């Protein structure tokens, strides 16, 4: 089980041949849209969903009736037909939902891309809307209970009676193990949230715009669930994001620079639970991120050194930092040293990350804001723009079945 991960050798002998991949270089993201990100929107999720979708359609220069496909999360609380009817999308011929929460952030892109690549549909809109700050919070034990107890997932029965009830704690267990095995220090971890908060200072849409923190602020911030401090946690947000996927051929006739999908991949390795990935030979790493990354590099025929900028799904700092190792931006166990001082992950550094502020400092829209920022880096319109971006990577939630994309310039 997980021999490939343990030996760090990704086999390609039985995987689908790269030249048969219908998504690679043939599909693009052509429109992006979002609402304001706030902590108390006084709005419902339908309102925010349709506003962000309208913005994406306008951004692409399309009409509502052009959109004939829709893609969303299974955990979204909205009923898709209501969204379609509210928007007046009268030509929908393809709909799909992807499971696994934040792990699906790039899987929706992949499914939409597969649908347009096969000719099932022309333009697919992908969206996520949530009232995480003022409505139901996924990270809270008490609101989680009703939702999760209905899930057909036996391991919850072995966790909940012990008060082990929140994603933060589930991740803290593998995080502490990672710190223990590689001697990662609290000081090192702090550089991730500090650099992301710096990025948010240039992004007026970021929740923490205008509220910088120093490394000392991080060190002095309260512990929520040891080993995770307040500033290690993502920012609960009200907001919505949407983007539109179509073929590269159609994209070239539209008004925006296309962000071409060079590769898209999903992963669901053995013993994958929701963060509680404890039955694996190794729990100090993110096995699902490694598999998604390996598949992305295999399809794209590039390596980590070729990636110019990366948006790494970071629901808590450690979930982003360990991805640096699993995606090959540094050696295994070296990410603590790699981010020390922050320069390697700042704009201008070895691999600039989460340039909009990421899930810790921009917003927590289950990774959709990261996809949009990945597109901006290709367009050259980020508020923390990296020079001469050719390849822009985005990943999805770690600790769950995951996904990723590599975007490139046309």
């Amino acid at each position: 089980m997980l021999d490939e991960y343990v030996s760090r050798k990704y086999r390609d002998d039985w995987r689908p041949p790269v030249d048969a991949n219908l998504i690679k270089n043939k599909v693009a993201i052509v429109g992006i849209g979002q609402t304001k990100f706030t902590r108390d929107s006084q709005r419902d999720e339908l309102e925010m969903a349709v506003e962000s979708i309208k913005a994406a359609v306008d951004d692409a220069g399309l009409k509502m009736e052009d959109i004939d496909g829709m893609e969303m999360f299974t955990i979204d609380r909205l009923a898709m037909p209501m969204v379609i009817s509210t928007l007046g999308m009268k030509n929908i011929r393809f709909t799909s939902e992807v499971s696994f929460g934040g792990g699906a952030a790039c899987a929706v892109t992949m499914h939409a891309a597969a649908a347009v690549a096969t000719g099932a549909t022309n333009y697919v809109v992908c969206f996520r809307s949530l009232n995480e700050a003022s409505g139901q919070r996924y990270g809270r034990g008490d609101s989680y209970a009703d939702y999760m107890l209905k899930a057909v997932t036996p391991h919850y029965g072995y966790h909940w009676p012990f008060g082990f009830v929140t994603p933060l704690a589930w991740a803290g267990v593998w995080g502490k193990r990672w710190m223990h095995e590689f001697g990662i220090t609290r000081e090192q971890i702090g550089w991730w949230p500090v650099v992301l908060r710096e990025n948010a200072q240039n992004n007026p849409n970021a929740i923490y715009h205008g509220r910088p923190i120093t490394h000392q602020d991080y060190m002095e911030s309260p512990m929520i669930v040891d080993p995770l401090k307040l500033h290690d946690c993502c920012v609960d947000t009200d907001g919505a994001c949407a983007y539109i996927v179509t073929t590269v051929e159609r994209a070239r006739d539209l008004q925006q620079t296309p962000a071409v999908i060079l590769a898209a991949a999903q992963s669901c390795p053995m013993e994958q639970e929701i963060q509680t990935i404890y039955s694996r030979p190794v729990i100090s790493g993110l096995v699902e991120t490694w598999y998604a990354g390996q598949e992305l590099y295999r399809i794209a025929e590039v390596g980590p050194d070729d990636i110019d900028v990366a948006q790494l799904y970071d629901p808590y700092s450690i979930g982003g930092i360990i991805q640096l190792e699993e995606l090959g931006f540094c050696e295994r166990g070296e990410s603590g040293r790699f981010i020390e001082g922050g320069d390697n992950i700042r704009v201008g550094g070895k691999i600039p990350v989460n340039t909009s502020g990421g899930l810790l400092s921009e917003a927590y829209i289950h990774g959709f804001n990261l996809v949009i920022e990945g597109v901006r880096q290709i367009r050259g319109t980020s508020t923390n723009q990296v020079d001469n971006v050719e390849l822009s990577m985005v990943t999805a939630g770690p600790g769950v079945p995951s996904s990723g994309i590599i975007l490139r310039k046309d």
Partner: protein
Amino acid sequence: MTVEYNAEQKIPYPALWHVLYRSSTPFWDGVKEDKLLLQKCKSCGSFLNPPRPMCPKCQSMEQEWVPATGKGKLYSWVTYQESPHPAFKAPYSAVLIELEEGVRIVSNMVKVKPEELQIGMPVQVTFEKVAEDLILPKFETMS
């Protein structure tokens, strides 16, 4: 440190699993009799954790339940500084124990303070009645 439970609040206890996952039932039946049981594949001898109706290694659907020694080591843990649910009073720790059999399970420690926890410390199982209808396997430091 023993977890302090708030008696007025019901402990979140996914009772539905008996219906959805019959595989879990023998574990909890064992706990009621102060036994820590593990599911094992009858065909290839692999431990199945969490329990399941098929062995992922050999696809056999024949299992047996065998008693664990109850001894193991602290593999990792977290400490809640704020209570995430009204049934539990913070601070308290949730721990991941690696049993001698190689199986890892989530639990709590009894009579140990969070600051005394150390990865690798030897532990053994003990059973604690935490509510009228709920006994849980917990762990104490090995004497």
